[in-house]
């Protein structure tokens, strides 16, 4: 990174934080109060709610991983988000009016109203455990990529990533988080558009945006919709609509880091509008991020492409006993790349000249065959990397976009795109700190430990809870390198708890005759069974979400048959 990049990075991050703090103070008419600190005084308009919800969901990994996914696997990942608009509609009809009517600070307060304090405390505890640990991993995941590529010290990168957020989250509370979310989303959108535009600009003369799309289509990267119902296929129309719907419903409906965002809306209407706008914008946004990755893929059709995008691992390999094997594979890779460049140029010329279908079909087949051959060579290189360093990260998808940015984009924009990664990370971490603090103070401290404090006391407790959780998450991040693949670790952790928590809320909303005692025992037994299933390796971890939810609902229903503790009608 040049001095210009450093200046852009520092200015962007400082600008976001200062603006957020200044705006939150300027609009804090009623002064500091717990309502202001945790829910922004329920004063925010719908577009704030919308951008805040989007910034919370879009982590740094979204901007590192999604373009990499577009590059290596095409556009089909967009289907994963098809369930989100449907979930937003269900939330707007069911969850939002109930949370607003009960004037709750956290989603778990509602559970006491519906069941009893034990169910509330247990669910809040499960959330704190899951969110606390996964936020630590969310700090570590982008930090390890930045530190690997830029040569930064991982411990300092973790501290910087988690520490900057802590400053404005503690000082400005939810309002500062929301105002910074606004700026972060603006920066992210501008930078990603610039990156996409420059990628098209870097293509060979005569290859425009539509030409690039056509090449991507012929190479099988515009695989946007798969209508085949195949349980083994991770992304298709049906898994996106059905599986995605349940996943997004549990995330937005029961995770306080999201519930806390839409509860800041001025009214039920503003919260609803914010969520519905998110439902309208999310799919196109994800489409555009993936498209940047596909454009990077087209760019490399005409240029040299590294055999493995994590350069540091390749350098280690080159200095090892496996260097001769790697050289042979690299020569094979270079030959295939030259072959692919020729085919891509031939195809481009054929498409321009409206050549007959046979020529284009032949080019398409050649392009796909070379792509498969390149994947085989890469798999062999990955095997060597693993042999050389069993602890090496053999998935380079997260490195594709950043490697491209550093190698080909101009100085200044590099700094801005690193700022995007920080901004995205800060957006989701800030919401996590805030939700951890509000759940700790409202559902544990105020409810169970000290019920006689005044507003100023609980406000102070919220600030200290934010500091405490911030430090906890940074410490977790420092130990996270022992957990293997980060994304998988985050997903496994989420899957262990999300399904069970969703089950509790499903019972609360849709099975009004089931009481607190049955739900409490169903939650405890359900969580133990889910952990047991994971420990015994009985199924792929994503299924734990479904199993957890079904177990809690089924057990609660079964136990309620033997229970006199029926919820009041």
């Amino acid at each position, binding site marked *: 990174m040049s001095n210009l990049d450093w200046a852009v990075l520092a200015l962007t991050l400082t600008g976001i934080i200062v603006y957020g703090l200044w705006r939150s103070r300027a609009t804090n008419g009623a002064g500091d109060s717990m309502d202001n600190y945790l829910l922004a005084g329920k004063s925010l*308009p*719908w*577009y704030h709610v919308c951008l805040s919800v989007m910034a919370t969901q879009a982590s740094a990994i979204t901007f590192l991983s999604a373009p990499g996914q577009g590059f290596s696997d095409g*556009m089909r990942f*967009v289907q994963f988000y*098809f369930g989100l*608009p*449907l979930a*937003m*509609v269900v939330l*707007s*009809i069911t969850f939002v009016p109930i949370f607003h009517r009960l004037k709750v600070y956290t989603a778990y307060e509602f559970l006491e109203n519906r069941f009893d304090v034990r169910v509330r405390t247990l669910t809040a505890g499960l959330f704190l455990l899951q969110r606390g640990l996964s936020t630590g991993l969310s700090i570590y995941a982008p930090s390890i990529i930045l530190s690997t590529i830029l040569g930064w010290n991982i411990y300092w990168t973790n501290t910087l990533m988690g520490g900057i957020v802590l400053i404005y989250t503690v000082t400005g509370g939810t309002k500062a988080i929301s105002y910074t979310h606004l700026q972060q989303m603006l920066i992210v959108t501008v930078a990603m558009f610039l990156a996409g535009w420059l990628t098209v600009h870097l293509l060979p003369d005569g290859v425009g945006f539509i030409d690039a*799309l*056509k090449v*991507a*289509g*012929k190479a099988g990267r*515009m*695989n*946007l*919709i798969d209508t085949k119902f195949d349980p083994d296929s991770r992304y298709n*129309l049906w898994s996106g609509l059905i599986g995605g719907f349940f996943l997004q419903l549990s995330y937005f409906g029961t995770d306080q880091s999201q519930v806390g965002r839409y509860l800041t809306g001025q*009214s039920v*209407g*503003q919260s*609803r*509008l914010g969520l*519905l706008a998110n*439902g*309208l914008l999310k*799919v*196109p946004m994800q*489409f555009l991020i993936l498209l940047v990755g596909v454009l990077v893929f087209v760019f490399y059709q005409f240029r040299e492409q590294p055999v493995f995008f994590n350069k540091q691992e390749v350098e280690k390999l080159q200095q090892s006993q496996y260097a001769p094997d790697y050289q042979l594979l690299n020569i094979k890779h270079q030959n295939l790349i030259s072959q692919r460049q020729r085919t891509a140029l031939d195809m481009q010329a054929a498409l321009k000249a409206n050549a007959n279908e046979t020529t284009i079909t032949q080019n398409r087949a050649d392009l796909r065959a070379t792509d498969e051959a390149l994947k085989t060579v890469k798999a062999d290189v990955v095997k060597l990397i693993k042999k050389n360093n069993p602890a090496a990260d053999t998935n380079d998808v997260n490195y594709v976009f950043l490697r491209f940015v550093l190698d080909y984009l101009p100085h200044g924009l590099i700094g801005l795109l690193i700022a995007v990664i920080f901004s995205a990370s800060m957006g989701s971490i800030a919401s996590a700190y805030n939700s951890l603090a509000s759940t700790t103070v409202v559902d544990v401290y105020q409810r169970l430990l000290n019920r006689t404090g005044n507003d100023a006391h609980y406000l102070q407790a919220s600030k200290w809870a934010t500091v405490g959780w911030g430090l906890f998450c940074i410490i977790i991040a420092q130990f996270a390198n022992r957990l293997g693949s980060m994304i998988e670790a985050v997903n496994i952790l989420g899957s262990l708890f999300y399904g069970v928590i969703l089950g509790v809320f499903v019972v609360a909303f849709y099975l009004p005759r089931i009481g607190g005692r049955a739900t409490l025992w169903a939650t405890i037994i359900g969580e133990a069974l889910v952990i047991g299933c994971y420990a015994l390796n009985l199924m792929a971890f994503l299924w734990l979400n479904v199993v957890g939810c079904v177990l809690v609902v089924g057990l609660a229903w079964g136990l309620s048959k033997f229970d006199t503790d029926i919820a009041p009608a």
Partner: protein
Amino acid sequence: MTNDAKQITNRQSWPQLYVIVIGALVLEILFFYGLMVWLA
């Protein structure tokens, strides 16, 4: 825009908004499908 939003709330036209969100999703899926077929 906030005033517009209030008016929408006042008109209680939420079902129409839900239809718009779901309709937009259907149109996006159809657009993506068309794009995929055109570029394949």
